[in-house]
C-alpha cells in the first residue's frame, strides 16, 4: 500500500438555508480511488469547485469520509487514536501565507510545530535549522515574518511543516497569491523537498507550468477523477482539458496550435527546449 491511499472515498455535506432547514445534499468527492507511492510528486488539477481541496483535506484528517476509507501510511483516518500521528506524517500548506504564520520571528514560527509535538528543545533548534536550509530561508531566521515577501513567507510555512518531519506534504494552491518570482521560489523549494529529502508531494494548483515535472497528474471534475496520467499524457489532451475549464502550459499550447497548422510536431510538448529541438529538426 502507498503512503496515501483512498478507497471509494465519498464526502457529502448537507446544505442548509438561513433557518437551518435542509435544502439538499452535495457530494463534493465521489468515489475517488487514489494510490500515491512514497516519494512521488503528485499534482491535482481541477476547476474551482471540482473537489480538489475537499479531497486534500481528507489526507490529514481535517475531514472524514462519508463513505469509503482513507489511509495515510497505513493508518485509517477514521481511527481517532491515530489522528495526531496522521497529522504529523501528512503536513498541509494553504494558499494564503499570512493565515499560516504565527511566530514573531521566522525561526520561532518554524519551531512551533515540533514544540507542540514535545520534541526536546535541542532537537527543535536542529530541526528549525534543517528545515529553513531546505527551503533556502536560513539567512532570514532572525527576521520578522511581516518583513518578508509572499514567496518567502510561503517558504517559511513549508519549513514549518517539514520541521515536523512529515512523510508527505500537501500544498493547496500555495502560489495563487504570489508574483512570478515568488512562484518560482516556492516551486523550486517543493521540488527540492521531493528530490533531495524524498518527501512525498501532493501539489494542487491552477498554474499548469508548475507541474510538468510531476510523476503523476490527477484531474478532478464534479468530485470524481476525470483524467490521470503523466504530465505528457495529460497535456496532450488540450481540448479535453479546456472542456474541464483548465489549460496547458503556453509552450504546449503553441506546439498544439502549430500542429493544427500542419507542422509535424509530437504531442504533449512540455518545455521550451523540447519545442526548440523539434522545430530545428523540421527546419533542416
Amino acid at each position, binding site marked *: 500500500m502507498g503512503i496515501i491511499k483512498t478507497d471509494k472515498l465519498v464526502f457529502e455535506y448537507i446544505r442548509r438555508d438561513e433557518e437551518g432547514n435542509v435544502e439538499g445534499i452535495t457530494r463534493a468527492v465521489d468515489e475517488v480511488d487514489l494510490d500515491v507511492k512514497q516519494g512521488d510528486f503528485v499534482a491535482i488539477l481541477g476547476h*474551482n*469547485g471540482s473537489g480538489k481541496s475537499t479531497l486534500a483535506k481528507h489526507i490529514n484528517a481535517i475531514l472524514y469520509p462519508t463513505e469509503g476509507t482513507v489511509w495515510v501510511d497505513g493508518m485509517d483516518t477514521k481511527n481517532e487514536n491515530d489522528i495526531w500521528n496522521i497529522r504529523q506524517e501528512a503536513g498541509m500548506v494553504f494558499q494564503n501565507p499570512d493565515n499560516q504564520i504565527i511566530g514573531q520571528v521566522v525561526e520561532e514560527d518554524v519551531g512551533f510545530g515540533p514544540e507542540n509535538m514535545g520534541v526536546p528543545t535541542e532537537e527543535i533548534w536542529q530541526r528549525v535549522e534543517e528545515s529553513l536550509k531546505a527551503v533556502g530561508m536560513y539567512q532570514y531566521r532572525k527576521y520578522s515574518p511581516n518583513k518578508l515577501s509572499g514567496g518567502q513567507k510561503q517558504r517559511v510555512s513549508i519549513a514549518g511543516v517539514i520541521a515536523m518531519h512529515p512523510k508527505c506534504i500537501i500544498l493547496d494552491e500555495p502560489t495563487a497569491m504570489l508574483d512570478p518570482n*515568488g512562484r518560482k521560489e516556492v516551486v523550486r523549494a517543493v521540488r527540492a523537498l521531493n528530490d533531495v529529502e524524498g518527501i512525498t508531494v501532493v501539489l494542487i494548483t*491552477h498554474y*499548469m507550468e508548475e507541474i510538468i515535472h510531476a510523476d503523476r497528474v490527477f484531474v478532478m471534475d464534479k468530485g470524481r477523477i476525470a483524467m490521470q496520467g503523466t504530465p505528457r499524457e495529460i497535456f496532450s489532451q488540450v481540448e479535453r482539458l479546456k472542456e474541464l475549464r483548465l*489549460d496547458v502550459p503556453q509552450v504546449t499550447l503553441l506546439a498544439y496550435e*502549430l500542429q493544427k497548422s500542419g507542422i509535424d510536431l509530437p504531442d504533449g510538448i512540455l518545455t521550451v527546449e523540447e519545442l*526548440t529541438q523539434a522545430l530545428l529538426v523540421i*527546419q533542416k
Partner: protein
Amino acid sequence: MSLILDHVDYVYGGDTALAVHALKDVELVIPDGQFIGLIGHTGSGKSTLVQHLNGLIKPTGGTIYFNGEDIHAQDYDKKKLRSKVGLVFQYPEHQLFEIDVFSDVCFGPKNLGLTKQETELRAYAALKQVGLEDEYFYQSPFDLSGGQKRRVAIAGVLAMKPEVLILDEPTAGLDPKGRDEILDQIAKLKEETGITVILVSHSMEDVAKYVERIIVMNQGSVLFDDVPKEVFQHFRKLEEVGLAAPQVTYIMQELREKGLPVRTDATTIVEAKQEILRVLGKSYT
C-alpha cells in the same frame, strides 16, 4: 479627461526610524480609454499607487489631477472622485454582504443618493455587463461559485458608473477558464463603454494578451512604461526585479539562439505562431 500624477511621492512612518519611501517621484499620464497593465513584485508599490488614484491615500509630495482638478484641493468632492475612479480590491468577494446579489450591487449607487429606479437600472446594467445570468439575481451571493462572486463584486463597482476601473488581481485563485472569462468580460466592457481599465496582475501571460500599455513598478518608481512588446524585450531586467516575460517570449529567444531566425518580440501565442509559420514557410521554399 484623464488622471495625471505629477511628481508623486509617498513616505509612510516618516517621523520614525522605520520610514518607508513607497512611491518615489512618480510621473504618469493616464488618458481616457486605455487598457493598462500594472505589474511589479510584491512590495514594489503597485497597491500604494492605485490607492492614490482614487484618493484613499494622500501623497506626501506632488499632485494628482483628475480631469484637470487637484484631487486633494480643499473644496474637491472626494465622494464624486470615488464614484468616478472605481477600485476593485483583491479578493473582492470577501466584501459581499447583502442578502441577495441584486441588493449587493445596489448598495453603491444607493449611497450616491440616486433614486430607487435609477439605482436598480444601474445594478441591472452592471450585472449584465459582467455576464451574470438573471437566475442568480435573487440568490444569496454566498451560494455562488468563486468566479461568479467575483463578478458580482465587480458589478458593484461598475454600478457606480466609473470612468476609470482599477482591478487589483481580479483573477487570483480562479481556475484557467474562470481567469479567461473574467478578463474577456473586462475587455468587452472596455470595448463597449470606452472606460479606462487598469489591471494589476502577477500573470505576465494575461497582461500580454489583453493590455495596450504596461507600467512596471520597482521599489516605488516607474521602471518601464511602454507597449507590451517593448516592455517584455527587457525580460532580463524584469527577472532582476522579480518579474518575468510570458513563456512565449522565452520560446522565441531560445529559437533564435539555436538558429531559427525568428523575430523575438512576440508576446502572445497567436503572434508566436504566425512568426514561426512565417519563418518555417520561408525555409521550406
